[in-house]
């Protein structure tokens, strides 16, 4: 049975799109059939992070309006066939996306894939509520920083009120993904600790993604970080998080890049 996952946060720029691409790729690397769907109408970027920007023909709104069939709009990843992207529209008319249209597309995607991962726009407006509307599972991306944690709390409330599952009296399965974590700054007490964040949000932890220049490198190249450098710290964090999402028990660690000179040399050669 396909799972619909929303990657959400409330606050902008915390790493939703990065995480959607990396987790989607990681699930595919673990053998799953995955589609990542960009809900950021007017400001699409998932295509860039996935490296598919030159291949976009149709988008989500074209499909909901019947201008294109779903298989025509899906862009298959060149590196891994079982990973696909459904791009967002660049239209300025945000009302072009309707709940009924989204419902139909998600239902069709569920027939074709094991995982439907929806990259939510920031905010709590229509785009964000539509992205979470049909979710079975939510990944709340949080930075260890006050405004991000506060917005996450807000989003958790909305997930418990405005999703189809919530309205049916069921619960959306919620996971916290702490991103851009800097262990050195946390140790110096400059950054909220993992324990603080978990205690405040009381939501189970899916993973801790360290702050890393590998993320920027990967997005420059248009390759999810788990493809681009699978042995890097953020890639290992995302690969583990994907396994947890699949229901596996994986010990929680904060991967670090700390390698000796030789380790780096070999790590690089292996990549």
């Amino acid at each position, binding site marked *: 049975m396909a799972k619909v996952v929303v990657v959400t946060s409330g606050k902008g720029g915390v790493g939703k799109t990065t995480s959607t691409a990396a987790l989607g790729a990681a699930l595919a690397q673990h053998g799953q059939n995955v589609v990542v769907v960009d809900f950021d109408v007017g400001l699409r970027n998932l295509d*860039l992070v996935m*490296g598919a*920007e*030159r*291949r*976009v*023909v*149709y988008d989500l709104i074209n499909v909901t309006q019947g201008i294109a*069939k779903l*298989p*025509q709009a899906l862009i298959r990843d060149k590196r891994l066939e079982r990973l696909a992207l459904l791009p967002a529209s*660049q239209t300025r008319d945000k009302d072009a996306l309707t709940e009924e249209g989204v419902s139909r597309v998600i239902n069709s995607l569920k027939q074709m894939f094991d995982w439907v991962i929806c990259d939510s726009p920031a905010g709590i407006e229509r785009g964000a509520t539509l992205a979470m509307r049909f979710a079975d599972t939510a990944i709340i991306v949080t930075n260890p920083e006050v405004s991000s944690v506060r917005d996450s709390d807000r989003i958790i409330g909305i997930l418990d009120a405005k999703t189809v599952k919530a309205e049916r009296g069921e619960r959306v399965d919620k996971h916290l993904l702490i991103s851009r974590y800097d262990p050195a700054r946390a140790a110096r007490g400059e950054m909220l600790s993992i324990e603080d964040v978990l205690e405040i949000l009381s939501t189970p932890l899916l993973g801790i993604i360290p702050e890393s220049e590998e993320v*920027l*490198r990967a*997005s*420059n*190249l*248009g390759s999810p970080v788990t493809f*681009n*450098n699978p042995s890097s710290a953020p890639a290992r964090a995302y690969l583990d998080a994907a396994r947890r999402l699949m229901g596996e028990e994986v010990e929680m660690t904060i991967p670090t890049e700390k390698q000796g000179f030789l380790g780096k040399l070999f790590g*690089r050669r292996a*990549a």
Partner: protein
Amino acid sequence: MNLFNFFKRQGTAPVARDRLQILLAYERGSTRGAPDLLAILREEILTAVGRHVQIDSNRVNVRVDRGEKVSTLEVDIEIPNAVRMAPRRKRAVPMQRSAS
């Protein structure tokens, strides 16, 4: 992987810049009223083919790849052999031939 080492040495920013230049050249065109040539070609090809054959929209596949110097447009239309044409003449062609 060689490619990977190559990028590592050079830094990835030049790749990012090239990718953005290609993308923005195209997006600026299509959002500021300039027609999107690939989209026009796509529509006209489909219309032209549709004049001769009934196209099943499930059997059409369009792929583009926007490059810096060249872009490619691939329009892949499945045309069933049995229902070849919207027939102009009602009589079957072989019958006419044997009659003459």
